[in-house]
């Protein structure tokens, strides 16, 4: 979402601070992305200049203060919205509408599932729409529901389930779709703490099992460090990349031990500091990297 801040246009553009790869290695590339909203009160610059790459099979978290244009960025990446400048490449192909090999899980689970369809039908619909044969479809839906631990409720309606379970349905739908890239827009911001921990572990498990590339947007610092292999820290609006941080925690993570590692605390501390700096208006030096 755009914030009220409209910066002067003649500030020098900061250099892209995100990590980039050789063309062939990147599954998802964001290049010089800029989004300006036209309003009655003049243009609002929500995202200024973002460049970063995601390797195939990477799990990266995108964290930033509220109002830092996270949702705008995600809408541009998912092809729901055209950027003002710059481009998004999925597997080398420019994104101009929602690509087939991408799935999105939204924060508002109550509003992203079809309330007139049962759990199973919700998961099945995108596959049906792709004309995948019935037997194959059934297998994919069963596996996806199994993976998120919902094999027992296929005939319920989503609104009969708790919030956490509804979000599991949304994740199952994304998993069954067999995307190469999975975008998640603050998916656990509206569920309670215990459910949230379970869902975080679920994401790690699904990620390891399927080898899918995941971009996970969150405003929760702990969550970003716990989940990600890498944390991309955004500045406040108009958004640039504050820092692109590698999370060198062991691959096997669990809620109790990982969170009590000294390294976890250090990383969390670091991300927290960077976000405080971002909120205070500090920008990375123009040629930091």
């Amino acid at each position: 979402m755009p914030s009220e801040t409209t910066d002067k246009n003649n500030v020098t553009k900061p250099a892209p601070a995100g990590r980039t790869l050789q063309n062939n290695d990147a599954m998802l590339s964001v290049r010089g992305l800029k989004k300006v909203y036209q309003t009655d009160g003049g243009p609002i610059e929500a995202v200024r200049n973002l460049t970063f790459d995601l390797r195939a099979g990477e799990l990266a978290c995108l964290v930033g203060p509220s109002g830092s244009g996270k949702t705008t960025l995600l809408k541009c990446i998912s092809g729901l919205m055209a950027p003002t400048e710059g481009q998004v490449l999925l597997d080398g192909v420019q994104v101009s509408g929602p690509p087939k090999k991408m799935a999105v899980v939204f924060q508002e689970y109550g509003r992203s599932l079809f309330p007139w369809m049962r759990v199973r039908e919700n998961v099945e619909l995108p596959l049906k729409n792709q004309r995948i044969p019935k037997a194959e479809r059934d297998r994919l839906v069963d596996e996806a529901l199994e993976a998120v631990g919902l094999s027992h409720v296929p005939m319920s309606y989503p609104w009969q389930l708790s919030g956490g379970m509804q979000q599991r349905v949304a994740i199952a739908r994304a998993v069954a779709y067999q995307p190469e890239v999975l975008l998640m827009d603050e998916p656990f911001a509206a569920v309670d703490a215990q459910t949230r921990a379970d869902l975080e572990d679920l994401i790690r498990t699904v990620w390891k099992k399927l080898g899918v590339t995941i971009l996970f947007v969150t405003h929760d610092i702990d969550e970003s460090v716990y989940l990600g292999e890498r944390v991309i820290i955004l500045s406040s609006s108009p958004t640039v990349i504050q820092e692109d941080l590698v999370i060198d925690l062991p691959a096997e993570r669990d809620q109790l031990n990982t969170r009590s590692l000294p390294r976890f605390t250090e990383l969390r501390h670091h991300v927290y500091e960077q976000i405080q700096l971002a909120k205070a208006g500090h920008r990375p030096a123009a040629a930091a990297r």
Partner: protein
Amino acid sequence: MDNTKTARRRPTKELLGIAGIIGFLLVWEVIPRVGIVDARFLPPASEVILALVRDFGLAAFWLAVGETMLAWLIGLVIAVLAATLLGFIIGSSAFLRSFTNSTVEFLRPIPSVALIPLAVLLFGVKMESSLMLIIYASFWQIFIQVLYGVADVDNVAMNTAKSYGLGQFARIRHVVFPTALPYLMTGVRLAASVALILAITAELVIGSPGLGREIALAQSGGAIAGMYALVLATGLIGVLINLVMRFVERKTLSWHSSVRAEVIV
């Protein structure tokens, strides 16, 4: 992000709406002029609007409008009072609700126009005939909404009120009434348009005084442009009633956080 879009497009929206009206009038103007429909049966828009403007200068026109609106108002007020009173009494008691349910469900779908012969028999071509139809039709709209509203009262709020020792009357005044008010207002708004339909119907079919009778007279007397002008006038009154009722609803419920959607009842 959607707000920004609508904010930018607002002026265009109104312009488009005006363009739509002008376009409609142009089509209407052209159809009889090029002879798609005989101009004797569908005069061009300009002629009809001229006739309507002429009507605005006639005392007889305003008298007819006055008669229609008077029947509308009296009928609506009686229906609101009766439906509110009965709705609150029956709605507050689980026994009365179950006891009257089958009768209500049977009486409500009876089309009010079925009462036309009875009204003629009882009152002839007087305003009472219109009133009977108006009251019958509007009553159910409001009554059902009030029943829903009273049933919608939050149990926690009710128990809180009880635990603070509020008596029966105070509970109705402070808990039941505010909850049911949005429903009541929706009912009144729906009833207001229904009442107009029935007022015009009674005048048209029975011949009680008002705009409907003028339409029937204009039609049988061959004053075709005049008839279309009166039809336009009833549409304008309908729009006016809608606007006023929406305004009243918003004013009354300004304290209410949500603008209620109509429930399917």
